[in-house]
């Protein structure tokens, strides 16, 4: 529908009778999350993820999901092709020695496959989720810095989207070796493999972008509430104000839980695969580089991977940081304004842990950063013990890094 819509616009533009003057309203953002994420989701749809119709509609009421739309079948086709590709990868790996490095394509394919399946599920829940989101957003106090959210989302998006420089992309870039183990080389098959690689790599980067986006959207809502609280806490406010802020906080938390139920699988896949690829890349960094071009490329991609993983973690854990902020603010309430509602609010804040989770196994908070760093260090030390230098530079191992 997006393409159709733009086609209509193009026709309208070309036809001088129909030409409508663009008003200022068309170019103004209303600051809603739905509007902010629209471009990101449109790009995702080009790469077969998130088959929801009506993403660029002016309000979230235009969103819908249907099993009969071409987007849905496009995604299903993508899933099928990825599964076939996974089959080829397994076939290839099974014919060589099994170790941490050789399973790389399998890990890569499996994580993408699970993630795209999760995205398909998420697309089904997306319209309901966005409506709930809009309802909560509607209750929030006015936007003070309207462009803030939009600008951050788009900047992150443009920074990260050209995922070409990813280690895995380069790894797959040269050839789709797993196909040619089974079939003789042919040109069209090569192109097919290439397309598949681009889609897969995009999907892999997109997981992280999507999570950052969710993290920003949710923490921004909490931040808006915090800003309003900060202005009011020092004065004795009426009880109704506290009821309002408590219920508002509660509805944001409910939204976070709902988003978590829908997206926690993607979170687990993203963190798991990032951990694996960081370990792998660090292990490869011990090798001697054949040329300085290789070295530059390699360190660049490693930095990119590290910074992307850190960014996901920081943006998502911002939710937890922001959710704990009101607790500090409530301590400043003066005696005259200390109602039973404030007491209840403070009690709830003290005992709840608000954060997105990885399938409920771990909460994404800032503490996780150190835990993950520790894990990477431990595994790295052990993996180094078993490391042999020449292996990762072997041509038959089809590895360009």
């Amino acid at each position: 529908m997006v393409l159709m819509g733009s086609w209509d616009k193009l026709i309208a533009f070309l036809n001088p009778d129909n030409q409508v003057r663009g008003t200022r309203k068309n170019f103004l953002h209303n600051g809603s999350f739905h509007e902010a994420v629209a471009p990101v989701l449109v790009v995702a749809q080009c790469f077969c993820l998130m088959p929801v119709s009506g993403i660029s509609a002016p309000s979230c009421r235009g969103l819908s999901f249907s099993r009969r739309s071409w987007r849905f079948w496009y995604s299903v086709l993508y899933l099928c092709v990825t599964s076939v590709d996974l089959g080829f990868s397994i076939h290839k790996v099974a014919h060589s020695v099994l170790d941490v490095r050789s399973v790389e394509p399998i890990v890569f394919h499996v994580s993408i496959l699970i993630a795209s399946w999760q995205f398909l599920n998420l697309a089904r829940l997306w319209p309901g989720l966005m409506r709930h989101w809009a309802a909560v957003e509607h209750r929030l106090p006015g936007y003070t810095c309207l462009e803030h959210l939009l600008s951050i989302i788009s900047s992150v998006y443009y920074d990260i989207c050209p995922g070409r420089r990813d280690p895995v992309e380069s790894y797959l870039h040269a050839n789709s070796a797993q196909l040619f183990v089974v079939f003789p080389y042919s040109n069209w098959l090569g192109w097919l493999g290439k397309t598949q690689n681009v889609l897969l790599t995009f999907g892999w980067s997109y997981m992280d972008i999507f999570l950052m986006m969710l993290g920003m959207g949710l923490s921004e809502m909490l931040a808006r509430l915090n800003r309003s609280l900060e202005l009011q806490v020092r004065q004795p406010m009426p009880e109704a104000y506290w009821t309002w802020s408590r219920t508002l906080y509660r509805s944001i938390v409910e939204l976070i839980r709902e988003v978590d139920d829908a997206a926690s699988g993607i979170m687990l896949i993203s963190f798991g695969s990032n951990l694996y690829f960081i370990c792998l890349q660090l292990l490869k960094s011990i090798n001697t580089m054949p040329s300085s071009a290789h070295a530059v490329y390699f360190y660049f991609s490693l930095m990119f991977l590290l910074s992307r993983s850190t960014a996901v973690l920081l943006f998502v854990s911002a939710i937890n940081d922001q959710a704990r902020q009101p607790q500090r603010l409530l301590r400043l309430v003066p005696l005259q304004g200390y109602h039973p509602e404030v007491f209840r609010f403070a009690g709830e804040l003290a005992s709840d842990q608000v954060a997105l989770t990885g399938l409920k196994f771990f909460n994404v908070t800032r503490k996780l950063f150190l835990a993950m760093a520790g894990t990477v260090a431990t595994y790295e030390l052990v993996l180094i013990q078993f490391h042999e230098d020449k292996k990762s530079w072997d041509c038959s191992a089809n590895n360009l890094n």
Partner: protein
Amino acid sequence: MKFLPKMGRKLRRLKTKVRKLDLVHESARKKALQESCETYKNHMDNEFEVPIKIPKLSRSTKEAFLSDGSFHQAVGRVLIVAEFFAMMPVKGVTGKHPSNLSFSWRSIRTCFSLLFIASSLANFGLSLFKVLNNPISFNSVKPIIFRGSVLLVLMVALNLARQWPQLMMYWHTVEKDLPQYKTQLAKWKMGHTISMVMLVGMMLSFAEHILSMVSAINYASFCNRTADPIQNYFLRTNDEIFFVASYSAPLAVWGKFQNVYSTFIWNYMDMFVMMVSIGLASKFQQLNDDLRNFKGMNMAPTYWSERRIQYRNICILCEKMDNAISLITMVSFSNNLYFICVQLLRSLNTMPSVAHAVYFYFSLIFLIGRTLAVSLYSASVHDESRLTLRYLRCVPKESWCPEVKRFSEEVISDVVALSGMKFFHLTRNLVLSVAGTIVTYELVLIQFHEDNDLWDCNQSYYS
């Protein structure tokens, strides 16, 4: 000043009236209490009586086949299977009502169970003897751990069977108080999940046993010591018996019987923990479903006190079940941990044949899958018990009362979960820490690993 004594007299009269009223009230209250006690007693008696009075030959109706959503009914068939394998010798597990349950030392089931325990003990002794006569390593103690844990579980199960009738009666009283299921589908769900878990688990374990037999036959023909292939097979699978005694057919059959039963019991302990967890989680779910229906509405304080008492009852039930089965949970978790480590360590070896490779990877995946299933199902009890808090948070200001406050504080501060002998609580965090532990031990064990001694013909074989 005249009206003062008048007032005094009136006041005195009033006082006596009040005293009389108090007395009347008191006696009425006593009577009411007695009555309610008696009706309760009668009610309980009736309930015990009724199921016994059921006529023997009556045409079964549709109701007889419909599930009433009780745990007792859901686990009936599962326990029958266990009884067939010499565990849980309780009478009346398939009865309609838990009051039909009974345990007696003189029943044939108990004798069978005791006999099997004795036979397992003998087998355990033989394994111990064999292992102690060889150099001890992480790998070679495997038969002792396997048979030892089976023996332990058998004894715990016998002890559990003694408590089972009371536990089920308590379970029944808790279930009766809970908000009732609305549809037949909701009643049927828990029983269905339990049977499916049991069915799938048993099928997979059966498949594993068949594969292990195939690989053992393969192996036996590889290191054939005698001309007879059947004898070779038994010499291989029951090496602990024939280490002491010379080969004879009855001993071989006994060994085979012991193997099949041990394998079943080893699997069954995980199934049992899962079963109890599913039951407890579904009771919390029943309560949560009711709370969800009234989420965000203005409810009377009595509603909340009722729900709080129901929640408390389930918590007590959870604790009672935990006390009864925590040893089984502990054995199951530590066993899984040990066996996963051993199997992962073995995966480094080169496989002698395809049959071995198939069996090996199947059993490894089955083991990991089963461990994951046990952990997740048992963590669901904790998850469901925490979910209640989410609904309590949405109570509107108008109906926020001390009862709700007390309820939510209790939910916050209590940890409701099954445990492994109180050493650890079974929560979702445990899954990650167990995975971390396995990886760490594995990395250490790999350092001491030598390839060739695992598939050697003199090596003890089992599982």
